[in-house]
């Protein structure tokens, strides 16, 4: 029975892989954007080093840090739009009755997309980072970023999915998506490691899931080691659990509203 259920999810994931391949225009655009951003920032961090860097961080490390955070965030497919569309069209109503949980299916599809984007973007990230710095961090630290980075991207995807579910109550979820994404950029330390923020902001960030999504996996590169992996694993699991709960709860509330309204 378990095998059958798993097979269904795998089928969804395969469909998504095909979808991802079809949307490759956007993916190539993302790769180009990646190259540009890394180029700009390698220049930036070199300029900062010239001006006297207050933190003991090599500009090369900071470029690789950015490469990692950008890799994670660009890999996560913006599923909130698909979920919103699906809800608007009324697909969800049909799928509520089906044995495959709608949420599970949507997530499996998203993971499929992620599975295609992540490796391509990782390769782009590393190639560009190497091109602009002429250096590679220790292979162990890179190895540590992979599983945690992938998990982080999955976590971000779950968050996007939850935002998409808000379409049951909101006319348009895009503004919510933008704000959450920006909070992720800031409190996740996308461009600047969180250690460089003012104290107050560091404290605020610690209360959010965002550091576990970006700064956490990327700091292996900064530290050049796998130190802190256990802590990060615990954090990601905790937030993963919270995400699953939030998504499940949202869907339950939504189904309840739908059944009350007569479907």
């Amino acid at each position, binding site marked *: 029975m378990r095998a059958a259920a798993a097979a269904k999810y795998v089928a969804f994931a395969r469909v998504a892989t095909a979808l991802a391949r079809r949307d490759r225009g956007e993916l190539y*655009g993302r790769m180009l954007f990646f190259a*540009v951003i890394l180029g700009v920032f390698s220049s*930036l961090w070199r300029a900062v080093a010239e001006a006297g860097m207050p*933190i003991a961080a090599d500009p090369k490390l900071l470029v690789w840090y950015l490469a990692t955070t950008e890799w994670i965030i660009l890999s996560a497919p913006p599923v909130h739009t698909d979920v919103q569309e699906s809800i608007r069209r009324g697909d969800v109503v049909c799928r509520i009755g089906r044995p495959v949980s709608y949420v599970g299916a949507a997530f499996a599809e998203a993971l499929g997309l992620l599975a295609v984007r992540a490796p391509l973007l990782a390769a782009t990230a590393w190639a560009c980072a190497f091109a602009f710095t002429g250096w590679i961090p220790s292979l162990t630290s890179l190895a540590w970023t992979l599983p945690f980075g992938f998990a982080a991207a999955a976590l971000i995807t779950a968050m996007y999915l939850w935002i998409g579910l808000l379409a049951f109550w909101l006319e348009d979820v895009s*503004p919510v998506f*933008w704000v959450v994404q920006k909070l992720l950029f800031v409190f996740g330390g996308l461009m*600047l490691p969180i250690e*460089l923020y*003012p104290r107050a902001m560091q404290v605020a960030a610690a209360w959010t899931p965002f550091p576990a999504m970006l700064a956490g996996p990327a700091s292996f590169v900064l530290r050049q080691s796998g130190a802190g992996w256990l802590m990060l694993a615990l954090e990601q699991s905790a937030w993963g659990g919270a995400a699953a709960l939030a998504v499940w709860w949202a869907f339950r509330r939504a189904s309840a509203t739908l059944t009350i309204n007569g479907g």
Partner: protein
Amino acid sequence: MRERSNHLAFVSALLATNLKAAVALRGAFVIQVVFMMLNNLTFFVFWWALMRRVPELRGWRLGDIQVLFGIVAAGFGLTVTLAGGVRHLSRFIDDGELDTLLAQPQPVLLHALGLRLQASGFGDMLSGIAFIASSGQVSWRAAPVVLLAIAASALVILACGILFHSLTFWLGNVDTVARQLWELLITFALYPEPLFGGGLRLVLFTLLPAGFVGYVPARLAQRPTAALVVLTIAAASAYLLFAAAVFERGVKRYASGSRFGVHG
């Protein structure tokens, strides 16, 4: 003279209709404006946090970054409100919306640009002006020059949008590519020019004129000189005229009927 004043009446009528349509859903309108302002603010947090530690970067201080960012944001906002149709040009060309416009007596490009208005552009304009005003780099007396700088930036952004989307006339629907290129233009424009090396700098003042979107207008706003005024106006006009000419060429090609796909 009569013809031009009629175009003006037409353009203002388009704008008025667009505004009415945007405000028709009041809640959505406000949300778009407010959230775009928040969006811009979070981008700026990076520079603020960095410059608390490193006050000067290759001659650039936080105030300079604010002016640069403010000009690009306001210019972009101006473009997507007054000429919001530019973001949809590829689609207009590809799905035949252009036919409707060609059957009407007003200039096609002007009409197409005025068909849409993006409410978030108001958020961009407001935050842009807020950044410039709070930068401490620009005095109130310089307001006319600042407005000129914003207008020039907007015109170059618009020109590039028209150019990228006009490729559809020759290559078929290039909507995704055009959008990515446009995004690239804005991205480059938001970063201080000393960060870019020689070869790239050449590109940024020619093929992908981020230099005329951000750097030159920002310089103009902070340290206006007659030469800069001339350069700014000349560059903006040149790009816009070129873009309009390419679009017209494209329409001629469209009218001759050689495209992908057959129409019965």
